[in-house]
């Protein structure tokens, strides 16, 4: 496969990528011929670390798998542990957990809308969507005490209650957000410069989605009607009616429509949750030592289906915790979407699956024994190390016009 002239390293550090991962693009002219994905830079050993701590402490570790979808991972983990311990959660706790989950989906989708605008060079959309995202961040800070890592979950329920005077504040915020989202839906569909940059790229046909196991809005934009909140209802989703937004554009434009549609659905869900918020306690007493057992729990994170597998051995520390983040399922499809596309499409296609690579890698690369901690690299040493590292990846800057081979191809 040497039909390429040179390699563009969209390397671990690149303005288009929010987190470290490497896409070595095999280019001829402006067209992408092939792609070599390398993940694993953001690997923090969370699964191994979970085995060394108690369940309560693990909750705060699992929550930091990802910055934006922290509540998804915490709820998924808490659900699995509660299933093993056989705890029957009070209804109010389930409703509050759903409320915070939907608020997080709003904040994540608004963030994505801004990043998509930035990737296609339209910073005004970034500035406006992120200004409106502040409304939902303030509501979350009001309810849970922190803007990002909410830590509202505990094993057996939630830690904070929603007081009666907070509800009108939430409803007012939701009304302004809904009116703003309608405006962004109009802009995203009618601004020809945006639609020109979004439609027709990152094509993923219906059966490719099934073959590659793609999840979340990326799958729903190709007409695959799969949403864990509907298929495998958890928390309070069984008692709330909402519809799953699908689209059949199969491209980045379709994903934008699906995410904006999901924003509107989230507002509907939040209004129902607040209307039907039952009275009662918010937690149930959870044992410190969880009995032997195993459980698989699934959660519809803003990026797709998130899966946690927990195995307990009767002590207060889990025996095994497995986290499969939605991005790990979606990243395989990026190589498929970028075949024979332009280099200019690469950032928006990668951003369209809304990658969260800190979720995907979730393990630590523990410092190897031979290098002691105190070695600080001087500037020239760092320069030679990076040149040597890149040449090992097959990207040789010394002479660009000679063809060079990429590993693994």
């Amino acid at each position, binding site marked *: 496969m040497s039909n390429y002239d040179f390699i563009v390293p969209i390397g671990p550090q690149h303005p288009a990528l929010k987190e470290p991962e490497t896409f070595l693009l095999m280019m001829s002219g402006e067209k992408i011929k092939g792609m*070599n*994905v*390398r*993940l*694993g*830079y953001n*690997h923090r*050993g969370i*699964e*191994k*670390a979970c085995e*060394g*701590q108690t369940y309560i*402490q693990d909750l705060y570790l699992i929550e930091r798998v990802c910055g934006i979808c922290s509540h998804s991972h915490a709820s998924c983990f808490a659900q699995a542990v509660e*299933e093993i311990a056989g705890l029957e959660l009070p209804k109010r706790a389930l409703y509050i957990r759903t409320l915070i989950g939907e608020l997080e989906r709003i904040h994540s989708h608004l963030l994505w809308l801004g990043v998509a605008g930035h990737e296609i060079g339209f910073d005004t959309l970034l500035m406006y969507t992120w200004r409106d995202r502040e409304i939902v961040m303030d509501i979350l800070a009001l309810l849970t005490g922190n803007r990002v890592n909410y830590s509202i979950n505990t094993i057996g329920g939630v830690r904070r209650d929603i007081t009666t005077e907070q509800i009108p504040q939430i409803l007012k915020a939701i009304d302004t957000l809904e009116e703003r989202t309608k405006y962004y839906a109009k802009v995203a569909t009618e601004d020809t410069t945006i639609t020109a940059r979004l439609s027709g790229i990152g094509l993923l046909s219906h059966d490719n989605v*099934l*073959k*590659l*196991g*793609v999840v979340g809005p990326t799958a729903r934009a190709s007409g695959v009607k*799969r949403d*864990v909140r509907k*298929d*495998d209802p958890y928390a309070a989703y069984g008692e709330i009616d909402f519809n799953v937004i699908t689209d059949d554009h199969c491209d980045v434009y379709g994903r934008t429509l699906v995410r904006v549609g999901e924003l509107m659905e989230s507002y509907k869900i939040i209004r129902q949750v607040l209307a039907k918020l039952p009275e009662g306690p918010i937690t149930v007493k959870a044992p410190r030592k969880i009995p032997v057992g*195993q*459980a*698989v729990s*699934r959660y519809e994170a803003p990026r797709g*289906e998130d*899966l946690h*597998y927990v*195995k307990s051995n009767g002590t207060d520390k889990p025996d*095994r915790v*497995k986290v*499969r983040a939605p991005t*790990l*399922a979606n*990243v*395989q*499809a990026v190589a498929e979407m970028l075949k024979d596309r332009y280099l200019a499409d690469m950032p928006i296609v990668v951003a369209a699956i809304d990658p969260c690579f800190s979720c995907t*890698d979730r*393990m*630590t*690369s*523990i*410092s*190897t*024994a031979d290098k002691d901690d105190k070695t600080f690299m001087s500037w020239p040493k760092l320069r030679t190390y990076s040149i040597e590292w890149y040449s*090992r990846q097959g990207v040789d800057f010394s002479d660009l016009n000679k063809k060079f081979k990429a*590993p*693994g191809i």
Partner: protein
Amino acid sequence: MSNEDNIKQQLIEKFSALSDKIIVKRARRIFAEVSLADFPQVFDFAIKKLNFSILTAITGLDEGTVFGVIYHLSTENGIMLNLHTTTPRDNPLINTVTNYFPAADAYERELVDLLGIPVEGLPQGNRYPLPDSWPANQYPLRKDWKGQMPVNKEESK
């Protein structure tokens, strides 16, 4: 006869060896113990006949004397079948499922890197999730692996 029991019944009819090894833990969750020998037939039967068309994840476990591998299969409407197989610890070997699910190579590379279970038939490609400079045959997820564990202060006192 809910859907889950229906599936359990079909599995037991096809594979008599599984008769006491399948548990329907709760709605939409079926756990099954399958020996390594007849795993391929059960896997193929589940995908083709019982339309478990999506492989959501593959989990690797260190169970002391053996390595456990769980394949989480799910259908379009949310029912999940978790096939658990074991492979001996001294020379572990499982064969790949990338012929059914091309995207499964990331999950299988995790088994190779973190637990040291070689996967036969895995297509060549970058290693995941450990960095290239990771020392050879160090497998962090094994129980007997003594790396610098981030043990919190309370225990070390």
